[in-house]
């Protein structure tokens, strides 16, 4: 466990990647935006008129106390809420210049472009290789060389290649929690998505694995938009460019991360940041 993370951190230190700018906006190219999104679970109105923009090359953090609607909002962005019985989403979600929140939208094509990583690492009961190739194969990629290439590319992208390259055909469940989560990210990367949604990706991980995932997010954000729901304020301020604060189903304040954390306007946000409630 500690062995592979050491190995990982060593590889991070030796790489000559330029550190990415966080804390402030760096792009004005919009990848995904929402207009007045409302979410209902049966009669329960879980999210109110939320309008946000997600920019290419930026990480946007969604923060707020439990039950504030941030995860609900995140799961609307790739229409995962449609899989929940009794859940209804209204409003517009604009991706590639058209509204995807329509009954005619092809969910299966859409979710290739808008990937998602979950709270609990959830690799399939398959080998490491098959975890990566499973979805691309179902989507029609058959060529073995192309698949092998995709496996290496995705695992390198998720900073996992060096740790698993000799055991690609072993079960994904033999990996540590942090490695499993990086495998899940690799699996998502294999779809070459424009947007990746992270739903509290580190809440089940130890601090070192958490740092590894954060570093990974910064390394893959180029040319795509990343949205992360997190309860960890340090994490939000470390990785994100912009932050949106949710409270009781409302999107209360949205801005550049440094401004949100250092000069909050809304009293509720200020109370939340100073630990008046959580």
């Amino acid at each position, binding site marked *: 466990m500690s062995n592979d993370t050491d190995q990982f951190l060593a590889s991070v230190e030796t790489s000559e990647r330029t550190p990415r700018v966080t804390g402030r906006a760096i792009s004005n190219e919009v990848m995904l935006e929402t207009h007045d999104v409302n979410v209902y679970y049966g009669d329960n109105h879980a999210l109110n008129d939320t309008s946000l923009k997600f920019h290419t090359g930026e990480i946007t953090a969604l923060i707020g106390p439990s039950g504030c609607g941030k995860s609900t909002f995140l799961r609307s962005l*790739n229409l*995962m809420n449609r*899989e929940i*019985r009794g859940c209804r989403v209204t409003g517009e979600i604009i991706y590639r210049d058209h509204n995807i929140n329509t009954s005619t939208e092809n*969910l*299966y*094509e*859409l*979710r*290739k472009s808008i*990937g*998602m990583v*979950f709270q*609990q690492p*959830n*690799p*399939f*009961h*398959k080998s490491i290789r098959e975890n990566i190739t*499973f*979805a691309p194969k*179902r*989507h029609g990629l058959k060529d073995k060389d192309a698949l092998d290439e995709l496996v290496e590319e995705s695992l390198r992208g998720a900073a996992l290649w060096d740790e698993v390259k000799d055991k690609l055909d*072993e*079960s994904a*469940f*033999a990996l540590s929690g942090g490695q499993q989560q990086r495998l*899940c990210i690799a*699996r*998502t990367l294999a*779809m070459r998505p424009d947007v990746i949604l992270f739903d509290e990706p580190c809440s089940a991980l130890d601090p070192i694995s958490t740092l590894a995932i954060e570093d990974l997010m910064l390394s893959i954000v180029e040319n795509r938009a990343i949205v992360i729901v997190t309860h960890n304020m340090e994490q939000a301020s470390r990785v994100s460019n912009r932050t949106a604060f949710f409270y009781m189903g409302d999107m209360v304040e949205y801005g550049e991360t440094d401004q949100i954390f250092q000069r909050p306007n809304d009293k509720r946000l200020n109370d939340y940041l100073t630990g008046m409630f959580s």
Partner: protein
Amino acid sequence: MANATSVTTATSGAHAPEQEGRIRRSMRNDKLATGILAAIVAIVMLIVVAMVAYILFQGIGMLFQPGFLTEASRSNGTEGGIAYQLFDSFYLLILTLIISLPISLFGAVFLVEYAPDGPVTKIASTAIETLSSLPSIVVGMFGFLMFSVNFGWGYSLISGAIALTMFNIPILTRVITQALEDVPSSQRDACLAMGLTRWETTLHVLIPAAMPAIVTGVVLSAGRVFGEAAALLFTSGMSSPARLNFFSLNFASPTCAWNIFRPGESLAVHIYKIYGEGSPEAQHIVWGTAAVLMICVLLFNVLSRIAGKALARRMTAE
């Protein structure tokens, strides 16, 4: 009642001797309960062990009798072996599984993955529950009237297999439903979030993940089907043909072993028949058959555990 009063006094006055008495009483009761529970479990185990041991004691000798497992029965079962009954039991089991497994699997998949919450799902679940509590002799009567008489299949293995299917479907559906529900929903989410359809998710991820539990359930249900007698009396009949040809591929021939429209007799029915005839010379055949039947069912139980564990280990790479 005595307990309740002692609690009130302890909380209101709390004198040390009273407290001590209460603790002593509680500990004594705890010991007593432990003793009684252990005794009950011991009695149950004793009954099982005694029964198994007695049947084996009475019947095991027959297993080593030359020809008992390899010869056909003669003189209406009072002489010879039980080879055909053994074969018919397994053949019935396989036929039953061929019919009931797909139905149960797809039924369970529908109930877990597709069916909307509502009256239809509730009615379907209730129907399946009801099917599992029907007396087997009633199912046998129904099978007789429906398949043997109405469809004109007579006493045939297929009639028997369909009657057995009616027991097996509820058991299997419940086992598979449970197995599918036990797959963490995060697996489902992962698939759907990668743009796979519900069907692809079910076929390639949920069913494989549920496979160890499904296999365990199928083999356990096989044990029950294997020992069934009442439902078969009127459907597959009470006798195997005098001569079976295992190499015949003429599936319409009454002597072809694989012909599903020929009558057949399971081990349990064989026991019922010979025992009912009451000829004292044949009693050792009854015991021998009972021993064989019981060993088979025990093997199913052991096998189901081993297979389930082995599959689970392979999939989680522990």
